[in-house]
């Protein structure tokens, strides 16, 4: 009995070490870069990293909700473009910026909701449903913009991407507020618990009285909303709405989620992990630039980091088995 207890204690400590591995890896990565580059650890550069990670982080937060239900949302990059185009287009045609901003948010949220409908009512696998939306969203953006960027936006609106409160850039504030709210929702609401329940075992969740359809509609709508928010912050940051905005962003968002350690199988993970995942990708991009690493080597480094992180995740499920 004593022996068994000792064994389980050791298992716990090994597990928690792996559990916190991602945080440790993040700190180590930062330390290594601080040694390698004298400017890395300057406050200005660290704020830059946070700023550069913020849009991907917003998308990745939404993606976390979806992935926790064992789904996937490939349409986030296209929804970034839709929201930016709607907001930018309205502003250019003379609509007041708060209205344009709201319209952009609504557009993205509605398309996210449409993803949810496709997944629940039509039982289309999330990969296919959101892949279709990736295409539809990009097409709608090209149609609406005629393939040209909208420039000359309201300077007040541009503050959303370029302004700062004290030393903290506004996009970073948006990211922090979003991570706070998402954490509360996932940890302290019935909806949040249901998200985990649906992801671990949809059948058991259904039997326990969870309205699975509602939960799924909820997560895709949230992902659509946060993609739209990311798109509008990006538009403000660039002072222009680009028809090609957000191309390939879905891959960075998924990478942030899985690097953080949230399981693609659903039911396991957290929003804080995703924040760390997004920051790791941001730090990596920043560090590779600072060190002027050969652009041909950079994708290899980034890919290796994803492999290592997901490898750790696999290891965890094997030793843990919760």
């Amino acid at each position, binding site marked *: 009995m004593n022996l068994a207890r000792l064994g389980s204690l050791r298992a716990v400590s090994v597990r928690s070490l792996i559990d916190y591995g991602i945080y440790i890896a993040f700190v180590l990565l930062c330390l290594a870069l601080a040694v390698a580059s004298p400017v890395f650890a300057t406050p200005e550069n660290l704020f830059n990293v946070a700023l550069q990670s913020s849009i991907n982080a917003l998308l990745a937060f939404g993606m976390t909700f979806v992935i926790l239900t064992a789904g996937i949302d490939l349409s986030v990059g296209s929804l970034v473009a839709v929201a930016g185009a709607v907001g930018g287009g309205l502003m250019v045609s003379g609509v007041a910026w708060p209205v344009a901003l709201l319209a952009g948010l609504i557009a993205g949220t509605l398309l996210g909701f449409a993803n949810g409908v496709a997944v629940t009512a039509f039982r289309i696998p999330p990969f296919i449903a959101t892949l279709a939306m990736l295409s539809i969203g990009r097409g709608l953006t090209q149609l609406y913009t005629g393939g040209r*960027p909208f420039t000359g936006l309201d300077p007040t609106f541009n503050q959303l991407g370029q302004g700062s409160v004290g030393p903290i850039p506004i996009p970073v504030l948006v990211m922090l507020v979003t991570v706070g709210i998402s954490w509360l929702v996932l940890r302290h609401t019935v909806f949040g618990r249901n998200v985990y329940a649906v992801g671990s075992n949809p059948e058991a969740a259904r039997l326990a009285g969870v309205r699975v359809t509602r939960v799924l509609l909820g997560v895709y709508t949230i992902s659509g909303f946060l993609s739209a928010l990311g798109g509008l912050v990006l538009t403000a940051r660039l002072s222009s709405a680009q028809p090609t905005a957000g191309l390939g962003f879905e891959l960075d968002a998924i990478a942030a989620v899985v690097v953080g350690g949230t399981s693609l199988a659903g039911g396991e993970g957290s929003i804080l992990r995703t924040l760390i995942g997004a920051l790791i990708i941001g730090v990596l*991009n920043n560090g590779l630039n600072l060190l002027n690493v050969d652009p041909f080597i950079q994708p290899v480094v980034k890919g290796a980091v994803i492999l290592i992180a997901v490898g750790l995740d696999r290891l965890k499920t094997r030793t843990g088995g919760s």
Partner: protein
Amino acid sequence: MNARKLVAILAASTLLIAACSTGGGGGSKTIGLALSTLNNPFFVALRDGAQAKATELGLTLQVADGQDNLATQISQIEDFITKKVAVIIINPVDSDGIVPAVQKANDAKIPVVTVDRAANGGTVASHTASDNVAGAKMAGEFLIKQVGSGTVVQLEGIAGTSAARDRGTGFKQAIDAQTAVTLVASQTADFARDKGLNVMQNLLQANPDIKGVFAQNDEMALGAVQAIDAAGKSGQIVVVGFDAIPDALAAIEQGKMAATVAQQPKVMGQTGVQIAKDIIDGKTVQASVPVEVTLVTKENVAQFK
């Protein structure tokens, strides 16, 4: 949107009818020009250049507007083959998708010339496009002259694309030819404005003393301008881009960018027709004919707007 589409369809059918009524037969004096789209000033200028050259050489030019639709373009090329035109000049909607149409022309023994965009298969007698190497070299030399001495950085396009490769080669030639200005960092920003902003921000951190940046396209250059403004270094860093897109021309007028490189679509059209004429006359033609590009600065920016 619907109205616009209707207009496009109407315009297309008018063009089609016009093409049918004027260009009855092919023959040794007729050239077919299949453009990807005419809904873009660049290709309109290309057509104008081609038309002028054809008139000058006494050739009949039949123009087809592919409306950026591969299926449309392929049927237009099939029509040219049926009419037995002497040469088909193609500006493909898509380099891969156009291959079957090129092969059909090959089967019908009609020589094919490509302009601006190449075809990734079939037999093409000659390809003519902007000289990216020379353009980037010119941009680099201008940047060096403006900077005088010190350090500069480069924002590269999508790794592995011909535009990124050629523009990188040209810029390197300019840098290697002198010693006063050194290139301290060269990083990719994938031809995108948002990445140009992020990467430039990082490069400014690592190299606060840089005096200039060459971006392999204007989108990245405009992103760099934003990073420079955000860092409070407006006007202290010379920004040179490539492509002469409207936003960049505006930035040059405002003094935020120093220069960009403009392609010359008119000359490209003329060159395409000249090659077709050479083929008709039985002369040997070069597999690749570069078209000169021009540097756009504050002095001559008005001409390009």
